């Protein structure tokens, strides 16, 4: 594995998006992973529609039928991959733009599918495997506890205490070997996370969190998706 890796340097990551005042982070995490997978499959980076997921994806967790993807009220990336697999794919952002509300009807147009899922899987709770899957398969959809993110401005976040109760969906796009961690008197590695709160938050919309101890639960819900090359 390379010591440092960032999918942004390889053209697999679209610009930072803004979910607005809507709990649709799960849809941005999902589209981000599929955008990367589609890039690896086709060589083209296409921004995909979160609104399609917000409006049309109501897939429920098979283990818990009451827990379903539900627009601004929340969802799960693996369920969203399942929806995308069943629906045939996602439209482009420009064809089905984000509105930040979940009150509209589903306007999915199957003739305008821009990216399709071939399969998806969950990655083990092992940082080397997470890094290997990231490098091999593209950006990964991950869950995180966002308690420290409300006040985050920059740097490598490495809180002494952080709940592992996952409440936010984000996109893992890379890692670095030497983040600044003065409290441990040495440089420590970190993950590079793409968030969906606009460029004015964090480091131009990105978050760095230290690697090594499943900090804030970042290693515990990681999923990878693969795309198939489709012609609209």
């Amino acid at each position: 594995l390379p010591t440092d890796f960032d999918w942004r340097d390889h053209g697999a990551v679209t610009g930072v998006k803004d979910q607005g005042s809507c709990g649709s982070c799960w849809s941005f995490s999902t589209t981000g992973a599929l955008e990367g997978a589609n890039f690896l499959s086709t060589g083209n980076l296409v921004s995909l529609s979160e609104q399609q997921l917000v409006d049309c994806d109501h897939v429920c967790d098979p283990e818990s039928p009451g827990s379903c993807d539900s627009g601004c009220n929340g969802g799960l990336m693996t369920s969203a991959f399942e929806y995308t697999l069943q629906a045939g794919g996602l439209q482009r952002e420009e064809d089905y733009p984000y509105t930040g509300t979940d009150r509209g009807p589903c306007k999915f147009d199957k003739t305008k599918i821009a990216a399709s899922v071939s399969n998806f899987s969950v990655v083990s709770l092992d940082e080397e495997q997470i890094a290997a899957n990231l490098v091999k398969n593209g950006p990964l959809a991950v869950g995180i506890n966002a308690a420290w993110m409300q006040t985050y401005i920059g740097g490598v976040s490495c809180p002494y205490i952080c709940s592992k109760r996952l409440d936010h969906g984000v996109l893992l796009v890379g890692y670095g070997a030497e983040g600044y961690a003065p409290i441990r008197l040495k440089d420590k590695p970190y993950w590079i996370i793409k968030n969906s709160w606009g460029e004015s938050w964090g480091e131009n919309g990105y978050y760095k969190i230290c690697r090594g101890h499943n900090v804030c639960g970042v290693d515990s819900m990681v999923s990878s998706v693969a795309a198939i090359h489709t012609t609209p």
Partner: protein
Amino acid sequence: ATVVAAASEDSDDLLIRQVVPESNLDDLILNADHHFTSFVKKFGKTYADTEEHAYRLSVFKSNLRRAKRHQKLDPSAVHGITKFSDLTPSEFRRSYLGLRRLKLPADAQKAPILPTND
């Protein structure tokens, strides 16, 4: 900053006590009213009435104290005023977070284990 190590050389991640200069968060807290005005302008915030404005100022002050606590417990990051500084933690969770609890189905496909050497 002065750093006092309390760990032996071969212990990797034992916590040490760090003494740092007072951060600019103290200045933010002392001049919270002024910084709130800048915050409102910078992020284009609008509030329904003076009552709402006063309430948001109180939340803002509370979040500055919270940012200071975060800074102490997360010294390698920078914490401070963000566009969410006028939201209580529960408002923040309600409006911007939305990940449901994961209960992995028994048949969930596990990613194959990849080689990580060379």
